[in-house]
């Protein structure tokens, strides 16, 4: 058997292990990925709207953003948190590092699996959003592009998660939420259309550095073409670049942590 064939088989087995473990922890996984976006959608889309504090139609703008947020952030968290733990006291990942596949592939598997979880969490938001908001006025012909953005967003989230998870030392895990996740949540254009930020130029520039912005804008532009949005090609290009840059960076950090 060739080395490549053996590595492909080991890669599938390592991915299978992660799918198996997630399947067994499904309820806690669902709670982890759904509570926050559902609560946000409920307060901003439903409660504030009914009280008259937000304009009618805001919920429609919010829903694609929440789907994008889930794709990117769940992928990021589900790659980075387990990795920080894996490299700390438990050292569980050693079994995978000693499996017959290149260590780079183990890093890619972590990223890919985080992205799969992000994608799954994002898909779940579709029916939940429909149920909560009653109806959506989506441009259905934009759906394929929205799904493309979702897939790229999940992969970008996994890549950023790999970078963060392999770079953050375990004792800094608390700080990670405050200085990395919170800013990513609020600068990702998921609660507002980025293209309309002209009067807040500096904030618009800050948001342009967050890969999540391109997921939100791409999805919102495809599903609600009437809302001002970034050109689609910009979104795709930015997300592909984010995947490549953070993917390479993450693999580099991973190798440094995995090999002494």
């Amino acid at each position, binding site marked *: *058997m060739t*080395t490549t064939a*053996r*590595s492909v*088989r*080991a890669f599938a*087995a*390592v991915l*299978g*292990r992660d799918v*198996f*473990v997630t399947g*067994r*922890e499904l309820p806690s996984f669902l709670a982890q990925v759904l509570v926050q976006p559902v609560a946000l959608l409920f307060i901003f889309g439903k409660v504030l709207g009914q009280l008259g504090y937000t304009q009618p139609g805001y919920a429609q703008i919010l829903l694609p953003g929440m789907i994008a947020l889930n794709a990117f952030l769940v992928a990021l968290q589900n790659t980075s948190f387990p990795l920080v733990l894996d490299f700390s006291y*438990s*050292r*569980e990942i*050693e*079994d*995978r*590092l*000693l*499996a*017959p*596949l*290149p*260590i780079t592939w183990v890093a890619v598997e972590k990223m890919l699996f985080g992205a799969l979880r992000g994608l799954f969490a994002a898909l779940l938001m579709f029916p939940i959003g429909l149920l909560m908001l009653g109806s959506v006025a989506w441009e259905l012909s934009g759906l394929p592009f929205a799904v493309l953005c979702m897939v790229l967003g999940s992969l970008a989230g996994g890549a950023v998660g790999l970078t963060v998870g392999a770079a953050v030392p375990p004792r800094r895990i608390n700080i990670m939420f405050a200085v990395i996740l919170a800013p990513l949540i609020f600068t990702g254009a998921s609660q507002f259309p980025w293209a309309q930020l002209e009067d807040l130029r500096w904030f618009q520039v800050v948001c342009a550095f967050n890969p999540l912005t391109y997921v939100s804008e791409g999805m919102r532009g495809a599903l609600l073409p009437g809302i001002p949005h970034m050109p689609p090609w910009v979104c795709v290009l930015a997300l592909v670049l984010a995947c490549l840059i953070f993917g390479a960076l993450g693999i580099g950090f991973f190798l440094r942590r*995995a*090999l*002494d």
Partner: protein
Amino acid sequence: MTAAVDVADLVKRYPKSRHNAVDGLSFRVRRGEIFGLLGPNGAGKTTTVGILTTRIVPTSGKALIGGVDVGRDPVAAKTKVAVVPQRVNLDRSLNARQNLLFHATYHGIGRRERHSLADELLDRMGLADKARARVDDLSGGQSQRLMIARALIHHPEVLFLDEPSTGLDPQARLFLHDRIGDLRSAGITVVLTTHDMDEAQKLSDRVGIVDHGRMLTVDTPNELIRSLPGSGTVDATVHPNGTAAEKITGMLSEIPGVQRVEDLGPPAGTEATERIRLRLYVDGEAGPLLGPVAARLQERAVAVTDLALGSASLEDVFIELTGRDLR
């Protein structure tokens, strides 16, 4: 035939470190051999095992497993080795049996085979009733046996055991030693690191003594002991009858053939005025000296309560080579 393990001029310097953790280490392990890597803490044993199992990148030198260069072809090397590390690294999201099954899957062992192997190994390691136990609920000895089972399930050519009996109770240690004995009959090459002399002496076909990242000597335990200067000893227990201990050691050292005399103090529960134990290190054969020793003590009216031939242990070799300093 290629050696199971072939290490030559291996060097590892960790980043930001000022000295080499492994410093020009060379040794070969034959197929089917149980090789003991013996050395004090910090000698570089774990680092060497890490390099040979692809987890640590060497700074320079050669490290081959069954002829495969671990640096150049790590994937092929990983199919040939297995390691039971010093610290537990079981997969805590899986139960005991699943740990074995998934490990076997990573290594491409087919479904039927891995299920029967898992059951057989759990049984052999005394874990049959722990198959569904959570990893967190296993005792130290059980975790370690599970790690051995996991290591064996993909049919490695070389098994590395890093300080396997540290922290085990005597029963668990004996059980472990028996299992290591089984590996010998199964023809698996074993490299065992330890700082426990008795263990190395009991289990190993050959022992390499390492310190400061260098191989000081390699040989069979018996050969190492025989090579020790003053390897024969005479142990005496005497009743001083008022003679000072220094005086007794002094007069015994004057006997031709005696290298030095060590005062081991009184046996447990007795006073030094009643009884003292002495160890005489001898140049050549110890036997012919029994007579002269007894005669000399008799002359000075020191009563002998026990006089016996002792023999050096691997510990003596170890201390002789690595010194008495604390690490």
